[in-house]
């Protein structure tokens, strides 16, 4: 009981770290969730700047530009130099620079596949916005081609295309239910960062403190066996970890306005699995004879790298191929993957392998940590 109580007394020193990372986690969750709740729909349109150079000047190209102008802010590329356009893309003042080639309209009228036509689109490869403009162009041209092939004349085809695309907004209203789902996923998407940073910034230094060479030596001399002290430390660390995880789950659930539904339970199982893995990682690291002071640097390295590479901050689909490969070796990646599967109406069986991979990571890291710890202990004895 002495060691158990002392754990919490030592933990008091790290309460500011706990509060700081809790606030950071909540801040991130709040910012991301507020993106998701703009208006009534999850799929609202974002107006973007587009520089367009129309070398075709056909009815079709003009119609396309008109359609794009209903969603985006069109800038005339004729008035801009290439360097200016490049700078605008780089500084995200425009998302795309489009060049509609001469003969573009004629090709559509001749029934050529719209996707085969070359509208030259330059965009920032790392930005999501550029892709959505291309999707808008594809949607417009595909529909227009369809109407033209269906025997409508140009004016009618353009009108119907515009109407059909405008109707898309009604789909957004239907998707209102999905907003809450998205909010749930956004909340839980961010939790691993909170769990990782809070456990590593507060629990790890306390465990390390008890393992400091001189304090450990002094305790080893005492009449309390080492295994009893270790059990007390493990119980206290476990209790704090459970408290942190439950608090974060409760907070995320309250903010998402969802609890005790089928999806919620799956999401919670996923979080709990990741938490167990994080605790195993904690056990591994605490065996490495690290100084408690190093724990804060370690927290940042683990918290940020696991979050970025594991698809916590950036969705997995937007990670580069290299980052994806590395990410697959991290439990947070499989946490995100499980979340994606649950979002796509996946059940427990669909996420089971993701959960097992997370646990496997934990067991392996803990094993390596224990072996390394033993070797360090032998060297320092």
């Amino acid at each position, binding site marked *: 009981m002495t060691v158990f109580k002392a754990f919490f007394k*030592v933990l008091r020193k790290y309460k500011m770290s706990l509060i700081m990372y809790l606030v950071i986690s909540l801040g991130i969750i709040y910012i991301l969730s507020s993106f998701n709740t703009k208006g009534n729909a999850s799929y609202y349109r974002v107006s973007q700047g587009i520089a367009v150079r129309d070398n075709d000047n056909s009815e079709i190209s003009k119609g396309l530009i008109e359609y794009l102008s209903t969603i985006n802010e069109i800038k005339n590329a004729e008035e801009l130099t290439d360097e200016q356009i490049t700078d605008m893309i780089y500084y995200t003042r425009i998302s795309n620079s489009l060049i509609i080639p001469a003969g573009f309209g004629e090709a559509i009228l001749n029934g050529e596949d719209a996707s085969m036509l070359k509208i030259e689109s330059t965009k920032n490869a790392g930005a999501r916005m550029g892709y959505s403009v291309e999707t808008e162009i594809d949607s417009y041209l595909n529909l227009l081609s369809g109407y033209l092939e269906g025997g409508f004349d140009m004016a009618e085809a353009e009108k119907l295309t515009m109407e059909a695309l405008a109707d898309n907004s009604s789909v957004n209203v239907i998707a209102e239910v999905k907003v809450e789902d998205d909010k749930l996923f956004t909340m839980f998407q961010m939790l691993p960062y909170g769990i990782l940073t809070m456990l590593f910034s507060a629990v790890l230094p306390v465990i390390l403190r008890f393992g400091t060479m001189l304090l450990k030596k002094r305790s080893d001399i*005492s*009449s309390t066996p080492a295994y009893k*002290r270790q059990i007390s430390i493990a119980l206290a660390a476990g209790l704090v970890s459970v408290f942190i995880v439950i608090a974060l789950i409760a907070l995320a659930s309250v903010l998402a306005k969802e609890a005790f539904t089928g999806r919620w339970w799956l999401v919670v199982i996923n979080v709990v699995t990741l938490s167990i893995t994080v605790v195993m990682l904690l056990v591994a690291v605490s065996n490495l004879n690290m100084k408690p002071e190093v724990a804060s640097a370690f927290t940042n390295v683990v918290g940020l790298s696991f979050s970025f590479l594991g698809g916590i901050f950036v969705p997995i689909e937007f990670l580069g191929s290299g980052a994806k490969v590395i990410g697959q070796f991290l439990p947070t990646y499989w946490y995100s993957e499980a979340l994606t599967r649950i979002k796509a109406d996946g059940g427990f069986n669909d996420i089971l392998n993701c959960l097992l991979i997370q646990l496997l990571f934990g067991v392996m890291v803990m094993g390596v940590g224990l072996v390394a710890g033993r070797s360090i202990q032998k060297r320092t004895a």
Partner: protein
Amino acid sequence: MSETVVEVKNLVKRYKELIALDNFNMKIEKGEVFGLLGPNGSGKTTTINCILSLLDFDNGEIDVFGEKMTSQRYDLKKRIGIVMQDVAVFEELSVEENIDYFCGLYINDKNKRKQYVEEAINFVGLEEFKKFKPKKLSGGLLRRLNIACGIAHKPELIILDEPTVAVDPQSRNKILEGITELNKKGATIIYTSHYMEEVEQICTHILIMDKGKNVTEGSAEELKRSIKNTENIIVYIKNLNDEHVKAINAINHVYDVTYMSGRLEIKCAGGRHNISHVIDYFASNNLDYDRIYSELPTLNDVFLEITGKNLRDKE
């Protein structure tokens, strides 16, 4: 009949090629303040670590309270208190919490522990600082806290491993007085140090060790009596030539003279009024000196005579 508290028999401890303890023997009787004296690296801390089962040893036997000591003998450990060379306390806990923690590793009873902690705080004189965090304490106060953490559970055997290193004179005196008091209350003390004055001041039995071996042992007086040196005469004098040094060496009862940087040290074996003979020599040769005094041999002289080197050679 005296009761043996610690008995070390033919202890051998090797660190690869280095022999830290070489068939080392030691016997400590109940109620003794046992001084383990030796230069840095002589094997004092290794001996203590072996007694406490913190270190495995290659050969030999260690009995504590008449029973074989192993790392699993928690019943024996309960009767031992250790004050380590380095201060080992939690920075995050206050003085009182630290003492309570370490006492709690031995004493489960909450009320009893509370009383013991209070007594330990009073004993080391930290009443005014009990709510302080260790970082706020001076070096001397920190040492006192270190001692309180080691003795709060009222052990029968207290091992103090160089507890006065880097301590101010006031705290040092307080610590030494405290050790004597603990001994008066019935605790057997093992005191390791390379400060011979301290050992001489408080220890009832002294063992001098070097290179992992027991060089000699006995009370301070016995040790001093066992050597040839009976008196050291120190003279601060400038410009003394080799002829004079040789002449002084020839004075009756003088057996060794060293002259370095204006300091002349004359070792005498037996005889009376040796200092008068030296003064007479200076007067007859018209030699002026700054200061002259005589002192009795110290434990360093014992060590020097037996090993040929000073106790603090390696400092």
